[in-house]
């Protein structure tokens, strides 16, 4: 969806216009549900996160401003933080360990020819990272793993996990800001 149209929609949502909210949900729901499924690995918990995120979006639409990036960036951050909070909650931790090893989670797709210049830059910069840095960034960002969970999952010492992620992110940032 055109970012400019999303901006019009979020401004209408901030004024309390319900049709705009529904249109925004219909347009962005599939991407945001994909993001939530990637992190939560359970339809039920991904639905819960998506619902709570959209309730927050409805109530906080007036807080959005362009300093936050595109409307989609703002909304995906809300969904991600909601998922992370749920993943870190006590009840989720109990069945978290099982799901970490589960197969069948949604696959990541690597767009062959991303149209968006930002996506092109990210793809290019990702290729400059060491394999380990990239793998650990993926485990943290897409699977919502903590440093300790990555340690348990990969057998790499905690300090190494932290420093590789940090190093990878700083390299990514330098490359993207060039």
């Amino acid at each position, binding site marked *: 969806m055109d970012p400019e149209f999303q901006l019009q929609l979020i401004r209408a949502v901030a004024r309390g216009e319900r049709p705009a909210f529904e249109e925004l949900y219909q347009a962005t729901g599939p991407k945001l*549900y994909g993001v939530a499924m990637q992190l939560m690995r359970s339809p039920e918990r991904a639905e819960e996160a998506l619902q709570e995120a959209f309730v927050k979006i409805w109530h906080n639409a007036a807080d959005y401003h362009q300093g936050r990036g595109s409307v989609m960036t703002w909304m995906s951050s809300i969904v991600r*933080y909601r998922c992370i909070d749920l993943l870190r909650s006590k009840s989720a931790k109990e069945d978290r360990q099982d799901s970490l090893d589960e197969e069948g989670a949604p696959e990541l*797709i690597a767009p062959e020819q991303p149209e968006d210049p930002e996506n092109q830059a990210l793809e290019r910069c990702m290729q400059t990272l060491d394999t380990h840095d990239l793998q650990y960034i993926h485990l943290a960002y897409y699977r919502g793993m903590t440093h300790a969970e990555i340690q348990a999952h990969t057998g790499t010492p905690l300090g190494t996990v932290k420093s590789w992620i940090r190093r990878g*992110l700083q390299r*990514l940032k330098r490359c993207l800001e060039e």
Partner: protein
Amino acid sequence: MNYLNDERLDALAADYVMGTMQGQARRRFVRLMQAYQKVRERVWHWEQLLAPMNARVEDQQPPERVWQEISRRVGFLDTTQSAANDEPQSKGVMAWAGGFATAAVLLIGVFLMRPDPTVVPGVAPETMIEQVAVFTQNDQPLWLMEVAGNELTVQATAAVETSDQHDYELWIVPEDGSAPVSLGLMPESGRITRALAVNTHDIAIKAVAVSLEAPGGSVTGAPGEVLYVTGLTIL
């Protein structure tokens, strides 16, 4: 430790956005974000740097029930049905509000004498405050709430207990005994202004209430544990 050292701040903001920062460190960082624009901007910068990673995630169509549940929770669906479903909790709030006598809103004078709020885009500066309420605990103010036109502004004081394990939600309790209506989440610090999803001027209001909810707000559409109730004073 100097949190606002640029390099350290950058690393912390990245940890926060990645989700690898957790527990007490995450709560402390959220408080820093609330206090410092510089910290917020660093977080926003990382959110924007990493957001294109979401392009790699395949879209998935959420089930229809997700939209239905969102609609119910933000009050789009038939409130009669919602009230029936949530009857036990609604009754609890009504009992609470029933016992509530006219609030001694001692702080309204202070509230109204504070300097003019920052002008919010889209709100005419001359918009007059029409309804106010102050939530207190042991005579200590927690939140100051005002309604001007279609805008709700809530200011949290330092006395509000913050946590990322729960949220506070604001409700109006209608005079006619119908189910409480959510006005959204309360800030745990600072000040928020947002458009009201319901017209508070058209409803006879018995009281306003704050409930304790799981993060994100009530999942049932009815208040959870009601912590504070006060009157909404019409100016």
